[in-house]
């Protein structure tokens, strides 16, 4: 086994279109994890269904490729069972903001210590280009022939509103930025949320590489930007047009779900054996 094979990156045929923004994400993810010195066998990728949901199959590590929209509860269960694992949940914008949006809200509330990466191509890729909750107004798709008429969903504003501990956006073509954002997200104790702008070269003719290139700027380049100011972060999250901010919008320290659970204070659940004495005590209450 070569040294290389010890890291996260593999070269493997993917099911993605040439030029897809997903390549940038899986590449940055591998480098971010390598950079953190994590061992692939201690990392678990939990994904939903969609083009984005296939990502874990193209990186080294443990994988649970679940159902459309369900990566977050599944990742939460895995993390609670084995807190030794670095758990990364991932999926598309349809997966996370349509089918799975309820879990998104409640995972932030629970603040389980995982990192959630959304491959946000603003469209349903795998099912061939229907509007997603973040698609631009007026977008013509197979299901919206007269143009999408729903108000776009703002995942960052939602996460900030819910007091998410780490709320960030990155861009799949800004490799270094994405690597650093992923690393910061993983290092953050608690639920970290990273929305990654991802061009879909096949179905999204609007939010293209070119379009983003002209618009994306890094919040970190703004001296005064204070990611602990919740209101400012929330207001900034609505900026979308000529200028599109990326970076860490909001950060706050909160007790994590793991902090709140006494059972796993010292040892992961998976390493604990049954306490027959305790169980016997539970049963004994039924003697009169």
């Amino acid at each position, binding site marked *: *086994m070569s040294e290389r*094979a010890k890291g996260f990156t593999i070269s493997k045929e993917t*099911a993605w279109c040439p030029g897809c923004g997903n390549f940038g994400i899986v590449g940055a993810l591998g480098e971010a994890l390598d950079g953190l010195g994590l061992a*692939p*066998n*201690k990392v*678990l990728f*939990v994904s939903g*269904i969609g083009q984005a949901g*296939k990502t*874990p*199959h193209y990186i*080294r*590590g*443990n*994988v*649970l*490729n*679940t*159902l459309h929209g*369900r990566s*977050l*509860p*599944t*990742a*939460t*269960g*895995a*993390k*609670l*069972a*084995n807190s*030794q*694992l670095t758990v990364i949940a991932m999926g598309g914008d349809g997966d996370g903001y349509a089918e799975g949006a*309820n*879990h998104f*809200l*409640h995972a932030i509330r629970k603040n389980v210590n995982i990192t959630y990466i959304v491959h946000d191509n603003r469209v349903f890729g795998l099912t061939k280009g229907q509007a997603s909750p973040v698609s631009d107004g007026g977008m013509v798709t197979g299901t919206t022939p007269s143009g999408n008429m729903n108000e776009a969903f703002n995942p960052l504003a939602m996460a900030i509103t819910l007091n998410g501990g780490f709320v960030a956006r990155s861009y799949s073509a800004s490799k270094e930025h994405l690597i650093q954002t992923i690393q910061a997200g993983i290092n953050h104790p608690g639920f970290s949320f990273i929305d990654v702008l991802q061009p879909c070269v096949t179905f999204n003719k609007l939010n293209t590489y070119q379009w983003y290139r002209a618009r994306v700027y890094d919040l970190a380049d703004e001296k005064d930007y204070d990611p602990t100011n919740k209101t400012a972060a929330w207001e900034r999250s609505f900026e979308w047009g000529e200028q599109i901010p990326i970076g860490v919008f909001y950060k706050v320290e909160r007790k994590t779900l793991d902090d709140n*659970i*006494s*059972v*796993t204070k010292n040892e992961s*659940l*998976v390493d*604990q054996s*049954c*306490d*027959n004495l*305790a*169980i*016997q*005590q*539970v*049963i004994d209450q*039924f*003697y*009169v």
Partner: protein
Amino acid sequence: MKTFNITIGGEAGQGLVSVGNILLKAIVKEGWYLFANQDYESRIRGGHNLFQFCISDKPVFVGEPRIDVLVALDEVSMELHQADLADDGVVIYDPTITGELTGRPNLIRIPFAKITEEQHQPRVMANVVAAGAIWALLSDSLTVLDATLTKMFGAKGEEIVNGNKGVAKAGFDLVEKALGKRLKPAKPNVIAPRMILKGNEALPAGALAAGLKFMSAYPMTPSTGVTEFVATHGEKCSVIMEQTEDEISAVNMAVGAAFAGVRAMTATSGGGFALMTEALGLAGSAEIPLVVINAQRPGPSTGLPTRTEQGDLLYGYGMSSGDFPKALLAPGDVEEAFYLMGHAFNLAEQYQMPVVVFSDQHLADSYQTVAPFDLTQIEIKRGSFVAREQAGLDYKRYRYTESGVSPRMYPGFGEGFVVSAGDEHDEEGHLIEDIATRVKMMEKRMAKMQGVLRDALAPVTYGDDQPDIVLIGWGSTKGAIRSAVEILQEQGTKALAIHLPQVYPLPAELEQLLAGPGEKYVVEGNFSGQLQKLLGMEFAWKPAGSVRRFDGRPLNAHYILERLAGGAYYE
């Protein structure tokens, strides 16, 4: 078998359950066998609820309609239950609630609240007056009732204990005064140690005993008791119980925990089960051991939330898209519920698949006396795992094997990777599209059913070897069917009860029993005869007739016998 039956009727919020709990303990302490069921509405206050006790010197398996003592805590109790009162039945009532009752003997008038007032005790003790009154019909002495009250209220201090004892005695005395010393129900010859609990306690206790480590759930009657039990006792047993935003999250969270290597389950009912079915397919495809308790209640849809039915059997059979290995279990009583949870987890882990345990409101909420649970009887079989030395980079989660069982590994356990997917996949867990791998993987998964079938729980039978009549049932009808068979036997009919604690896959022995002697009747708590259909599916078999109940109330021996006598032959 002679039983002594007490029915307490009243509104929710009136303390019915408190009276019930005191009596449960005292009756068992005094030495009787007991079956007690609860009947309540989908509301928090008001309505008309029941707590019904069936007491005997022999084991009791189910309630009986006949009432020996009726305690009327609301106006409608007399009206509704008068017809079931035994001729020498006793009615205890509070005239300030029901008004004066007349027109039959043995009407005992006890103003519960007034007595607490007279004794300068809080009104909530009115229940204890009732308990004392009832006790006078069970025992000549207050000793055991007093001991029970001492144990129950001891933590609140001596004054409160004495207050309770005082009002109980007042109730007791009034009844003794009214009726004199009556003959009391017979007691068992041998009074062995016994426990008293209900299905919603036995199931989660059984899960804990079986090594449950993780539960996630969203409340839904009548499964909520399981969830709250695990929440309450989980911490001291090192078990996490997480309430989720919905049932979809609950089942998927359990899937995640199970994947990571711990015994995990969820519990739900009706509509909640519907929302879980997608993830049941995931567990089937990705081969993740998952236990789901489905506490049935009458459908369709929200139906009768607090009532009982066995209406989800075929739903469980179909369960999710496509074909995958699974097992369906259906404990018939409190004792079976406890031990069967071990079997459920063993099947789930040995065959890496979803297992559904069917409970229902009748099992969930009914109390039964049982012999003390023996933890040493519970064998935990976690199935096949790779050894650490095989946990290298060439580890394949879905390795083809003859049994279809691929040795498991936890993520993080070895150097290799655990890769799982709900999409069709290859041995490594990566997605595939080709015919050959698809066929092999389907056959690998389905091969596991041979093992599951080998391990299937045998049918439980009671009665004659060469019966003239055979009653077949599943789940919580066990006691009703067994009692019906006993009555038939007492009446001189050769009868046999076949109870199925496992409804899928069905053990081969069952086919022999079905082909054996006796006219067969399928007895079940649903409209369409779902077990009957299942037997048709599996064995292309048809019974002579069937007995069904679908009004939301539990089956009992008399209901069955009446239907049989009436020749209720459904197709």
